[in-house]
């Protein structure tokens, strides 16, 4: 069996709630807490781990000296259609304020943000691009004559290496006794 290390990747998408979890009721503001977080499975410790919106924003490495430079995104949001990464970061911090129900540095709100303050079209993509496992490979085939047949009889098999084109060439000649056709094939097929 062929065994080797293989890599796969996967990604998750974080988003703020698409409807107001507080129902517009200021007294129910605590219902907004943690609504932008996600749980991701940690294969090493065999448990789900909470990834907060704030952690994901930090991990985007925006707005830092020597970090990711400002650039224009390919798609803006419906609310503002602003393509600037710096603006995206400000809006993400506002969502963080809403998610944590706390004042967050970098938000465009000096107080705790409400649902009306956030842009629900922001997304954060969390990627795990280098998941590596020891993988086994097998070849499975359908049984029967469609896959192939083993022929018994005098056989002559020759192999030779063609060093110029780096291929192995083989030639096989076999004489075999097959069963006579018992169902009505056209004569030309026999």
């Amino acid at each position, binding site marked *: 069996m062929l065994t080797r290390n293989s890599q796969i990747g996967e990604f998750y998408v974080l988003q703020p709630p698409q409807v107001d979890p507080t129902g517009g009721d200021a007294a129910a503001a605590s219902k907004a807490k943690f609504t932008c977080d996600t749980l991701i499975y940690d294969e090493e410790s065999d448990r789900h781990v909470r990834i907060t919106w704030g952690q994901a924003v930090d991990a985007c490495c925006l707005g830092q000296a020597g970090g990711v430079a400002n650039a224009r995104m390919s798609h803006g949001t419906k609310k503002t259609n602003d393509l600037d990464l710096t603006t995206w970061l400000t809006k993400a911090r506002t969502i963080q304020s809403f998610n944590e129900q706390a004042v967050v540095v970098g938000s465009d709100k000096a107080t705790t943000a409400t649902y009306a303050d956030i842009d629900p079209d922001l997304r954060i993509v969390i990627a795990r691009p280098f998941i*590596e496992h020891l993988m086994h490979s097998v070849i499975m085939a359908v049984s029967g004559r469609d896959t192939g047949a083993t022929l018994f009889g005098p056989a002559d098999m020759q192999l030779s290496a063609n060093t110029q084109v*780096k291929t192995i060439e083989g030639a096989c000649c076999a004489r075999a006794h097959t069963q006579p056709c018992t169902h009505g094939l056209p004569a030309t097929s026999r």
Partner: protein
Amino acid sequence: MRDVACAGYVAGCNTLFFAHDTNSDTYTAQNASTNMMERLSFSDDVGAKYASMLAFPSTAQQFSSGHLDTVMSVTTRLLPWEVTSATGGSHHSFPGGQEVFNAYSQALNLRSIHFGEDMKAAENQDFISQAR
């Protein structure tokens, strides 16, 4: 215990961000670049603890446009349907698009990520000569 619970697992599926420095609890692009290279080269040991995750900004409109739905590329290699011209296509599938990819590629040194191919073996046609 790790050998028992994670039989066949090598690395890359925990919930640590490459950008995170656990000692100072800070997130920087420099951390991400360094930790990613350490992970891909197994600079400590195969069984050591490496980070696994990256984060990128995006919008719902990029998903609904169909450019980013079920697959994305974080390397310089484009997806097969993104290669549309002789001079090369754009990273439509990357969160934020081509310009954001350029910014991250510069900051995180994404150019150094290999594609999971043994280029030397491909050049030498080892896939044929090793056939048995």
